[in-house]
Structure formats: structure tokens, C-alpha cells
């Protein structure tokens, strides 16, 4: 942990955090609204990075986990209607179970094969939701009865605290002993095992943690937007956005992906004037980053640091 404090990534993040804290006093409610969404996306991206960057498992279907969390929470709220935090917890729990389901093939399959399974998982969930439209509202989605708050500033604070806490936990985890072992397992499973580490156990844990946070964030997002729909929490397009965000911000840095996500959402909003073409521009930029700074923005900075 001592070294975690020396990590430049942490300091960059802290500075940005301070900045974020100051925002409510001097930017419009609308921008706070956009940032609120971007923070939840940030958590998605961080959770994804834990799997890819550390356990080295390419998950094309983060939205499978997110969707499970989101819909579980939403449906629970609309049926039994317990307090929101109960719904969120339930969502996270179900997402974790989903994480285990996803881990089973992951521990057997490599590269594209596993990638495909995750992709299919999303498609299946998508179909399931359309088929059970009576509870899920089908492809037009469902409105949840309760929401976190109507006030943009309040929502902003909730989201900010949420991403800060998740970020701290995930970052800490990544720098902890377990994080090291996980990274070792991801990089060279055989050597990790030869050092006496149960690779399977650690990867499984990684899936659970990643799923847990994805589910949490998914559920929170639902209670922020007041609706859950395939288009907002499950669609492959969302998954792609998350992956882009992580690559853009810098894989294996946990905090980088969060920053990437925020930038991505803001950029999308900035370019709204372009109408439909903004997606085109954003993708093009992301592609350029992949080609010229494969380490991503934060990753690039850190690399510099290491070389020096």
C-alpha cells in the first residue's frame, strides 16, 4: 500500500476529484447532470478494467452484469418496493451470481472464444427481457417508482461519492497483495501457480468483484434515470462504449478507464450539435488513440514515469 501513495495515477485522480467537488458551485445543473451519468459509466469502466487489465480476461459483455444489476433492482422496486438501498444491494448480488456464471467458461476458454460467450450472454439477456415483457417492460423499458432525487446537485453528489468510493476500493484492491497476485495470474498463469497461488480462485474472485461493482453502478444508474431499458443498460453499444473508455483512459490503471469514461460522455455531449455524426467522430478519435497511444491517456503518462 505504501507504494500506492507514491503512484502518480492516484495523485492525478485526487486532483481531478478536488476539481469535481468544486464544480457544483460554478457549472450549470445540466453539466452536473451529464457528469452524473459519466460517473456511473466511470464505475462500469473501472470494473471492466479489473477483469481485463488485471485478470487479463477480455469481457465483451460488461452490460450483461450491468443489466442484471439494473433490472433486478428495478423489478424489485416495482414489485415489493423495499427501500432503494435494498434494491441496489439485491441488484449487486444478482450481478455477482452472473459474474460467477460468466467465470465458469472463462476459466476454460481463451481469447476470442470467451469473448464470444460474453457477447452471447448479452444477447440472451436482451432476448429474455423482451420475452418477459410483462415484468421487464420489454424493449420499451420500465419506469421505476422511486428515484434517488430530482435535484441535479443532489444526484451529482451521490454519483461523485459513489465513483470516489468505488474508485478508492478498486484502486486499493488493484494495488493490494491480491491485486499483485491477480496481475501475476493474468500475465503468466503457470508461473503464478509455481509461486503457489491458486489462479482459479483469484480469477473467480476477480469476476465476482467486477460483477459486484458493475451491478451496483447499474442499479444506481436506474434509480438516477428513473428508467431501465435494453437501450440504456444492456445494448452492445453500451458495452462497446465501456471498452472504448477503458482503452482510451489506459488499461491496467483502474483510474484511467474512469477518466476515459468521463471524457467519452462529455465528448458525446459536446458534439451533440453534430447530431448523429458525433458517434462517428468519437469512434474515430478512439481508433486514433488505439493506433497511436495504445497505452491510453493515463497509461501513456505512467509509462513515461516508469521509463524515467
Amino acid at each position, binding site marked *: 500500500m505504501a507504494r500506492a501513495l507514491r503512484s502518480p495515477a492516484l495523485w492525478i485522480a485526487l486532483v481531478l476529484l478536488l476539481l469535481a467537488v468544486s464544480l457544483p458551485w460554478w457549472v450549470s445543473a445540466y453539466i452536473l447532470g451529464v457528469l452524473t451519468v459519466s460517473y456511473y459509466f466511470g464505475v462500469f469502466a473501472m470494473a471492466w478494467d479489473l477483469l481485463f487489465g488485471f485478470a487479463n480476461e477480455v469481457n465483451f459483455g460488461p452490460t450483461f452484469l450491468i443489466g442484471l444489476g439494473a433490472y433486478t433492482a428495478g423489478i424489485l422496486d416495482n414489485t415489493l418496493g423495499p427501500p432503494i438501498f435494498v434494491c441496489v444491494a439485491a441488484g449487486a448480488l444478482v450481478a455477482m451470481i452472473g459474474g460467477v456464471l460468466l467465470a465458469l467458461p472463462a476459466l476454460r476458454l481463451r481469447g476470442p472464444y470467451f469473448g*464470444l460467450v460474453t457477447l452471447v450472454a448479452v444477447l440472451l439477456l436482451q432476448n429474455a427481457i423482451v420475452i418477459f415483457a410483462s415484468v421487464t417492460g420489454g424493449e420499451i423499458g420500465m419506469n421505476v417508482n422511486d428515484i434517488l432525487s430530482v435535484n441535479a446537485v443532489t444526484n451529482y453528489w451521490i454519483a461523485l461519492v459513489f465513483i470516489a468510493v468505488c474508485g478508492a476500493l478498486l484502486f486499493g484492491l488493484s494495488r493490494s497483495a491480491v491485486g499483485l497476485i491477480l496481475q501475476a495470474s493474468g500475465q503468466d498463469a503457470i508461473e503464478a501457480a509455481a509461486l503457489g497461488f491458486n489462479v482459479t480462485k483469484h480469477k473467480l474472485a476477480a469476476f465476482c468483484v467486477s460483477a459486484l461493482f458493475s451491478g451496483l453502478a447499474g442499479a444506481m444508474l436506474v434509480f438516477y434515470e428513473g428508467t431501465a431499458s435494453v437501450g440504456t443498460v444492456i445494448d452492445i453499444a453500451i458495452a462497446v462504449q465501456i471498452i472504448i473508455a477503458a482503452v482510451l483512459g489506459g488499461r491496467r490503471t483502474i483510474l484511467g478507464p474512469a477518466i476515459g469514461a468521463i471524457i467519452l460522455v462529455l465528448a458525446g455531449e459536446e458534439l451533440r450539435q453534430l447530431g448523429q455524426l458525433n458517434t462517428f467522430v468519437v469512434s474515430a478519435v478512439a481508433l486514433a488513440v488505439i*493506433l497511436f497511444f*495504445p*497505452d491510453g491517456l493515463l497509461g501513456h503518462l505512467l509509462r513515461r514515469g516508469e521509463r524515467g
Partner: protein
Amino acid sequence: MLALQILIDGFAISALYGLGAVGFTLLFGVSGVLNLAHGGIMVIAALIGWQAAGGLGLGTWLGSAVGVLAALVASYATYFVVVRPIQRSRAIPREETEIFVLTGTLLWGIMIQVGMAYFYSDNPVTMRPLIDGVTNIAGVRTPTNEILIAVISWVAIGLLWLLVNRTRAGKALLAASINPRGLVLLGFELDRIYLMVWTIYGVLAGIAGVLLASFLGVGTSNIGNLTASAFSIVVMGGLGSVSGSLVAAYVVGYLETFTAYEIAPTLRPIPALILLVLVVYLRPQGLLGRR
């Protein structure tokens, strides 16, 4: 009767699935690239072909040719703009090239989708049938166009087979898919081989695209599904195995048609997806894959 209907209806769609997947799998076999912009390239062929045929009044056949040409260009663009730079980049560690190519082509696919939607809107379009009218096969009224499409698909696949197994260039291609290094030692330029496989891929994807437009109609909103189905079929059949992809294409095609007939049209895609998961899980190398 019903069985016959399923047999006939499933055949053409499966042939089309197969044609779409064959290029995809060949590309992987030879150059190890999974091109997630696949659907995009097919749709480019469809839309541009449609416009050339209708808008520019070139007629269906000429228009289709233009469409295939467009796909070829798109395929080259994918290779030179996205895939090759990633493969050659020093900054990207070897073991991560795969994921980078996947992400890169994925982004490229999105760019194609949005770009095409900008010019053509996301309404699906259809080419005029290559031939009109219907043929009556043992009481099953089948559009003559559908029969023709099945035939063309198989002719294209047949030609590919001849190319690979009977021509010198094809042999080199096959060899590259087995052992590229060995080929270099025999004085073959791999770059040429790759260029060739991207050419073949582009043409196949193009043909599949225009046929799809003429058979079912297609639009930018289908791009995701097209890529996904090609990907699944290819994995199910065994990455890199052409014959495997064909078998898988028919399995999927018939499974879907059967579901639509016998179970419920609403559940159409589901059994195929579940089967896919099972195959990938129980037999990761795919139906005919070797590993």
C-alpha cells in the same frame, strides 16, 4: 409438406449465412484476424449496390457488381487503415495484438454504421430481385429469386473451393493458414498473401451483402446482428475451418427456421444462441475445428 417447407426455406438463408461466414473464417485462418467490421462491409455492399441499381439506374446486375466493388474497397480500407497499422505497431505488445485488432475493427464497424446511416438513413433497403416470379417446388411456392440466390451462394463457395484447392495461389493461401513461417522460407511474400485473402474476403462479403439486400432487405441497423451471426457461426464451426463454417451455417439456419415454424417466431434466435454456448463450452475448437 411442412418438413419440405422448412427444408426449402432454410436452405437459401443458410446458404447466405454460409457465404457471409466463409470469408470471415478464411480471413481468420490465413491472417489470424477476426474482423468485427464484417457486418459493416456487407451493408456497404448492400446500400451502395442498391443505390447504383436504383438511384443511378444501372440495373440490378450492374448495381450488384458496383456493390461488390464497394465492399472490396471497404475491405482494403479495413486492412490498410485499421488492421495492418495495429499489427505493425511497436507500442502494442505481441500478446495483445488480438484484442487490439478486435477493438479496432469494432470501432471501425461503428464508424461504418454511423457513416452509412448518415447518407442512407437507417431504413432497410432491398435490391430488386435478380429474377422475378415464383417457382413451385412440390407444392411449395418459392420465389425464383430465392432459388437463384441459393445457387449463386453455392457457386461462389464452389469457386472459392476451386481457387484454394486447385490453383497455385490458392495452395499458397492454404499453406499460409497452416504455417506462414514455412511459406516465407519457400520465398513467398506474406504481404501478398494477406492482400489476396483480404481481396477474396471483400468479394465474398460483398456478394453476401448484395444477395442479402435482394433476398431479405438490409439496413445499417442490421450491422451488429450480421457481425454477431457471422462470428458465432464461424466459432461454432471451428475458427478457420471453412467447411466447419458451412456446416454451422446450415445448423443455425435450419434451427432458426425450424424454431420459427414449430415453436414460435418470437423465439427465433434463442435456440441457436444456446446451442452456440453449448458448443463453445463443451467443444471449444468448434464442430470441425482442430486444435
